[in-house]
């Protein structure tokens, strides 16, 4: 091992670290470690002034390795990598040690041992840095084309917005018609626009765009490649399969309406219907609302059907479906508009008419809807007695009084549920959350991005949303795709697997273990060995433990490095 010149900078974090870890003691303990050329402390290493000083140290001391012991790399890894690069140091010879989240914050009760641990952590960082090598990012040219899966309101709007930016769009819809649920619906809250009008308008605009290609009756059947350069196979109609090359994928597959089990809140009884069906009844009505030839006078809405479930249900939907309270209150207003003589009873748990939707709730009340609150553990009972519907419920708002209502119609305010998308999930390798919806990287800050780079999830496929929210999310996905593709290239992290072809004897174990199909068989000097396709490898490490010859390593996280770190960690602190 050649002599290294490593700079180690320990951060106070303005007290966040230094209140519990004696940072000067840490500095003193490691400054004579082999390879350490500079060891200093800073009040805030991330401050511009401290960064400038570190840059000067890197240049003046001709450092070839860098350790900053500060916060979580989630916060500042890229800050310090960029700093290293500005100083002329290869950014992958920088190692961040997490002294805040993993040490000072976790051990406030014991300063002495916290300092002890900090010394070990920094030593491990130094041990790793000693074995770093300069790496470079993998640059991939991107294709200026986007695949949008699902042509509901979110998919259609996303396609238009991508086309606006001059990128090509392939829009793939499973059904023969575009428009999804929105096309089937009439007036929708919050702005009284008709769903079918909106879809027609979007469809007309799409027809005029030369850079949008729409496939209906079509399904994605295969995905290869990676961010910026995906190759996609789409089955169109029964037998045709076409190949597409795209730089990004937007998944806008939407939702399904919850189908209650037989007997759930009386579902299956004559006169018990779901909210979407009720919407149709209201649309069709002229004056009175009729169901099966009978005039409806009294309506009971039961909320949270398929949402926030409890009790002994298999795989209950624990989540709140977000749109239903507002949608039901709005539908009651529409019904009132048709027939002000109606008596409408809403059996709810919490009214979640958030933000401006509160006005819908308020208006529904003033338009004589009566809201009755049922307890989580005591849901209403719907029966048909002597040919009449009967609903029994304990009203929490009236001191738990048991009420009996004889409605002509029971409307089950059904939730949004995730679509059956197993095939697509498998093809795209998309993560699915506990609730069955696609999972984003970060619910707050990165809500449309997924762990699969270049694949974005928008609309109700990510979680229940109103139409306006789905569209906002679709456009957000467009922003992300455009930011990715309009630059023309992507740089990928170099932390990928590396095969030692001398050791490898091609046993197929690695290619079986790889979830990304990144291992192929090649012949090197007549010997069959494994080869890593750089653009596909995610550096997941799945291949490493299965290799019987220990012929695989991850760049930046080699076995030797990890072992050196472990040795450093178990060494006595002082």
């Amino acid at each position: 091992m050649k002599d290294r010149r490593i700079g180690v900078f320990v951060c106070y974090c303005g007290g966040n670290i230094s209140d519990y870890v004696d940072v000067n003691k840490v500095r003193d303990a490691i400054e004579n470690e082999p390879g350490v050329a500079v060891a200093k402390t800073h009040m805030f290493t991330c401050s511009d002034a401290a960064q400038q000083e570190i840059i000067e140290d890197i240049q003046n001391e001709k450092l070839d390795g860098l350790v900053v012991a500060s916060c979580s790399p989630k916060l500042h890894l890229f800050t310090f990598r960029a700093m290293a690069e500005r100083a002329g140091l290869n950014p992958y010879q920088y190692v961040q040690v997490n002294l805040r989240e993993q040490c000072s914050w976790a051990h406030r009760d014991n300063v002495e041992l916290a300092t002890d641990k900090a010394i070990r952590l920094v030593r491990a960082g130094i041990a790793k840095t000693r074995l770093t090598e300069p790496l470079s990012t993998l640059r991939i040219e991107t294709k200026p084309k986007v695949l949008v899966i699902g042509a509901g309101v979110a998919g259609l709007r996303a396609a238009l917005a991508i086309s606006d930016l001059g990128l090509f769009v392939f829009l793939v819809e499973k059904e023969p018609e575009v428009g999804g649920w929105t096309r089937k619906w009439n007036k929708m809250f919050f702005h009284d626009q008709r769903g079918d009008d909106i879809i027609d308008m979007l469809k007309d605009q799409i027809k005029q765009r030369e850079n949008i290609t729409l496939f209906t009756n079509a399904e994605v059947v295969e995905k290869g490649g990676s961010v910026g350069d995906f190759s996609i196979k789409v089955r169109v109609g029964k037998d045709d399969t076409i190949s597409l090359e795209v730089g990004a994928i937007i998944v806008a597959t939407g939702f399904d309406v919850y189908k209650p089990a037989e007997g759930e809140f009386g579902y299956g009884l004559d006169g018990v219907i779901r909210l979407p069906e009720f919407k149709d009844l209201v649309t069709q009505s002229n004056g009175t609302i009729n169901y099966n030839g009978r005039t409806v006078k009294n309506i009971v809405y039961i909320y949270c059907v398929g949402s926030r479930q409890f009790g002994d249900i298999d795989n209950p939907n624990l989540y709140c479906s977000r749109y239903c309270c507002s949608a039901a209150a709005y539908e009651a207003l529409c019904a009132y508009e048709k027939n002000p003589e109606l008596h409408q009873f809403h059996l709810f748990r919490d009214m979640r008419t958030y933000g401006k939707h509160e006005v819908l709730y308020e208006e529904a009340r003033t338009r004589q809807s009566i809201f009755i609150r049922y307890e989580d553990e005591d849901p209403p009972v719907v029966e048909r007695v002597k040919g009449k519907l009967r609903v029994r419920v304990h009203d929490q708002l009236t001191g738990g009084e048991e009420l009996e209502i004889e409605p002509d119609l029971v409307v089950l305010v059904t939730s949004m549920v995730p679509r059956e998308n197993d095939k697509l999930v498998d093809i795209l390798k998309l993560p699915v959350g506990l609730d069955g919806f696609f999972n984003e990287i970060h619910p707050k800050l990165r809500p449309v991005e997924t762990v699969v780079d270049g694949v974005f999830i928008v609309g109700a496929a990510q979680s229940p949303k109103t139409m306006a929210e789905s569209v906002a999310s679709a456009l957000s996905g467009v922003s992300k795709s455009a930011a990715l593709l309009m630059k023309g290239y992507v740089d990928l992290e170099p932390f990928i697997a590396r095969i030692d072809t001398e050791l490898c004897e091609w046993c197929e174990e690695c290619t079986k273990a790889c979830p990304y199909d990144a291992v192929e068989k090649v012949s090197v000097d007549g010997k069959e060995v494994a080869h890593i396709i750089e653009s596909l490898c995610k550096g997941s490490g799945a291949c490493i433990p299965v290799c019987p010859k220990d012929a695989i390593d991850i760049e930046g996280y080699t076995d030797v490095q990890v072992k050196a770190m472990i040795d450093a960690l178990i060494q006595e602190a002082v």
Partner: protein
Amino acid sequence: MARVNPSFLDEVSCSSDFNAFACMNCGVCTAVCPMGLDLLPRRLFRYVLIGLEDKVIENTETIYTCLLCKMCEENCPAEVKIAENVKCLRSYINRKVFKL
């Protein structure tokens, strides 16, 4: 078990309209009542809205205990005209119970 009776409301509404629909059941009115009347006015109004006539008549005394001080009305986040409604109920009781 109480049968919901939507037409009871029409009976209560007299010359001045009874109107408690805007109520969002927050309970502030009950809590600010200087008389400490548990029942007035939120739950009482619910009896009317749902049509629980017996419950309303059962509470005749409470209805007359109200001072009409409008403490509740001042604090009502939904702007329900609570005192008007109580007057309306009194007029109903006058007709129904006291046969006035």
